């Protein structure tokens, strides 16, 4: 088989039974792989109304036909489950070396079900798949866990330095173990499948880590075609300004751009700009201050990842990032103006295994509640105004569920409601909003509000990219890009590199060379739309209504940035109509027929 491996690995954590299944051929055609396959499997196998932290939930690690095939920036893997934060289907993706190793081990998907009686970690090395005890790893931070597992693989399995170096590891830190609802899954030295709290799902299953070393291969149908296409792509990419910036600065070129254009989440979204951040607007400054080296994911020539270090013996290791979203949400949004402090906050979140975006939204919410006098100091134990370093302490307390951290760990809606002001949590479907302020771009508000996983910046394309700026076509672009990204996430191609319109044709091109069956842009757009609608059906069944496609009140009624509010109602009407959905946000029978989802639609129609 070309591209795919055609095999699913299913691990029942309750009984420790491990088996393999064939990938259904029809699903590979209709859902591609990665995110699409995950949506299909979750829809088929779980009742969307279950508690996300119950053993009934599935946790799926998925690769796509392009993973490990050599196509540039095709190494990411998708993790999928019902989210304990948003109660929606969720499918964050993550780079590094785990995705390709799973694929080379011979599996397109790894499905975990049930709950292990004791903490375990899964070792997936070609045909040797094992669940190993992880009681001694429980409580360890993310980097400690990686080091300990490498140590065990060295002494127990006799792996040499090269094998230990080539493998990929995903794990949870204490936050995931403690079921913090925005815990993430950490991977390969500081990468994260971040949003939507899947670390807590992994923790609820008593699964501490996954380690994989694959020595198998991926077969490519048209080798010469692929090699030539990749060389051509290199030529095109060399002249592209956006990609040049990505290579040099990663996402560090964005916080300055956002701050200077008054579009950066600041002070719990009360502002679009922070005075204290002005000194970092030139990304060269950030690069000089903290960069150690450029870090690529497997098979990506652009290396937008940056390893960083600060001169502080209490934070000895290098860290990945902080990326733009982290700088904004833990930085400007909490009023923190010092880069070193932001790096510390990033480091703490990485080691505990917490999503920096939702964590930042939680803390900025607590800060505003404190400043407005709704959250008394005696409840926290220390003052917490905007910009206060005490937030580092609070991050620790959330991850370990101490003091008031226990309350914050339950998510923004629960926390802000406890103090009487749910509207001060800047999140959608329970998930904190990312860095770009939606009042700066109407389209962004629509994207955040309609995303199937909650306020996610990775499920559509930024409205300031070339070819996406026409305000009259915002809604059309949003739908198109959501469909395209759904297909790309199923490929799996990196969202950061192949953003929106820029390299759209590459997905069908790579797919054709690698799998040997012709793929067209139209066909993949249709697959993407099918995936998007299936995810929507899952969410509707789990109890989501049109009221959840909303924005925080501050965004729709208080003109904070550029003296504008997002007129979401008008955009939503237009969006639903374009999607072929009723005004209640439910797909029409006609649309479902078109996508081959009539049967699935019966649950909600």
């Amino acid at each position, binding site marked *: 088989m070309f591209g795919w491996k055609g095999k699913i690995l299913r691990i029942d954590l309750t009984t420790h039974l491990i088996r393999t299944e064939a990938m259904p051929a029809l699903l590979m055609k209709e859902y591609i792989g990665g995110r699409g396959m995950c949506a299909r499997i979750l829809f088929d196998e779980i009742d969307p109304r279950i508690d996300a932290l119950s053993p009934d939930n599935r946790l799926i690690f998925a690769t796509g036909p392009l993973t490990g095939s*050599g196509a540039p920036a095709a190494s990411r893997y998708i993790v999928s489950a019902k989210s304990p934060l948003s109660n929606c289907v969720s499918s964050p993706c993550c780079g590094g070396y785990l995705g390709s190793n799973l694929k080379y081990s011979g599996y397109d998907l790894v499905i975990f079900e049930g709950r292990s009686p004791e903490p375990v970690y899964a070792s997936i090395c070609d045909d040797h798949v094992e669940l190993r005890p992880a009681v001694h790893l429980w409580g360890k931070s993310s980097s400690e866990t990686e080091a300990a597992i490498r140590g065990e693989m060295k002494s127990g399995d006799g792996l*040499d330095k090269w094998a230990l*170096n080539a493998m990929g590891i995903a794990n949870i830190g204490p936050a995931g173990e403690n079921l913090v609802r925005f815990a993430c899954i950490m991977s390969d030295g500081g990468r994260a499948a971040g949003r939507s709290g899947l670390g807590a799902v992994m923790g609820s299953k008593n699964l501490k880590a996954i380690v994989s070393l694959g020595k*198998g*291969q991926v077969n490519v149908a048209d080798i010469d075609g692929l090699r030539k296409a990749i060389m051509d792509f290199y030529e095109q990419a060399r002249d592209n300004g956006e990609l040049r910036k990505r290579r040099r600065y990663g996402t560090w070129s964005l916080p300055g751009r956002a701050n200077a254009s008054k579009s950066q989440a600041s002070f719990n979204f009360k502002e679009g700009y922070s005075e204290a951040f002005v000194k970092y607007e030139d990304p060269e400054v950030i690069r000089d201050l903290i960069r150690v080296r450029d870090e690529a994911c497997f098979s*990506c*020539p652009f290396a937008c990842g940056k390893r960083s270090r600060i001169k502080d013996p209490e934070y000895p290791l290098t860290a990945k990032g902080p990326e733009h979203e982290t700088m904004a949400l833990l930085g400007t949004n909490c009023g923190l103006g010092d880069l070193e402090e932001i790096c510390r906050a990033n480091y703490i979140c990485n080691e505990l295994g917490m999503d920096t975006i939702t964590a930042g939204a939680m803390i900025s919410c607590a800060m505003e509640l404190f400043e407005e006098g709704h959250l008394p100091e005696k409840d926290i134990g220390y003052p917490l105004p905007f910009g206060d370093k005490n937030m580092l302490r609070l991050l620790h307390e959330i991850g370990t569920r101490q003091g008031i951290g226990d309350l914050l760990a339950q998510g923004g809606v629960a926390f802000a409601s406890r103090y009487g002001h749910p509207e001060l949590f800047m999140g959608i479907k329970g998930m904190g909003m990312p860095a770009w302020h939606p009042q700066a771009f109407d389209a962004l508000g629509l994207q955040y509000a309609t995303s199937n996983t909650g306020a996610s910046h990775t499920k559509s394309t930024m409205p300031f990219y070339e070819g996406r700026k026409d305000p009259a076509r915002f809604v059309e672009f949003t739908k198109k890009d959501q469909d395209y990204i759904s297909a790309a996430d199923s490929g799996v191609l990196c969202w950061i590199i192949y953003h929106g319109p820029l390299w759209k044709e590459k997905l069908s091109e790579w797919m054709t060379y690698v799998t040997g069956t012709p793929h067209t842009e139209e066909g993949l757009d249709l697959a993407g739309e099918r995936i998007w609608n299936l995810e929507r059906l899952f969410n509707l069944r789990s109890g989501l209504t049109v009221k959840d496609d909303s924005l925080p009140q501050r965004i729709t009624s208080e003109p904070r940035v550029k003296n504008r509010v997002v007129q979401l109602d008008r955009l939503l009407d237009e969006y639903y109509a374009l999607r072929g959905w009723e005004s209640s946000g439910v797909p029409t029978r006609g649309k479902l027929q078109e996508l081959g989802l009539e049967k699935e639609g019966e649950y909600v129609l």
Partner: protein
Amino acid sequence: MRIKIDHRACTGCKQCEIVCSLAHTGSVNPWRSRIRVYVGEEFCLPVIAGPYTEAACNSKGTVIVDGIEVDECVVCRASCPVKSIYKEPDTGIPLKCDFCGDPPNPQCVAWCGPNALTLVEDT
């Protein structure tokens, strides 16, 4: 001709391993590659397969790269019985870089995005 390595420019993307495997075996499998990249925290080290040596050496030394200690075994180019790399995974047949033919046209150099590998004349 030789391949010059600028380890400070290497990002650890391993496209060189992929294209080496593609060019020599028609499949994508880093374990069939004649170049491997060791990913470190401070820098990455691309190492190109040299000749096969039958006996394992007893050297347990370290070398200093940019002030950081690196296991000698990691920078050693030999394909040898104790190392897991530079061997066909199924058969154990040793692999050695052949510069992709004569005249040399190393694919790892052609595919190296960050220009960590360059082909230079012997000096």
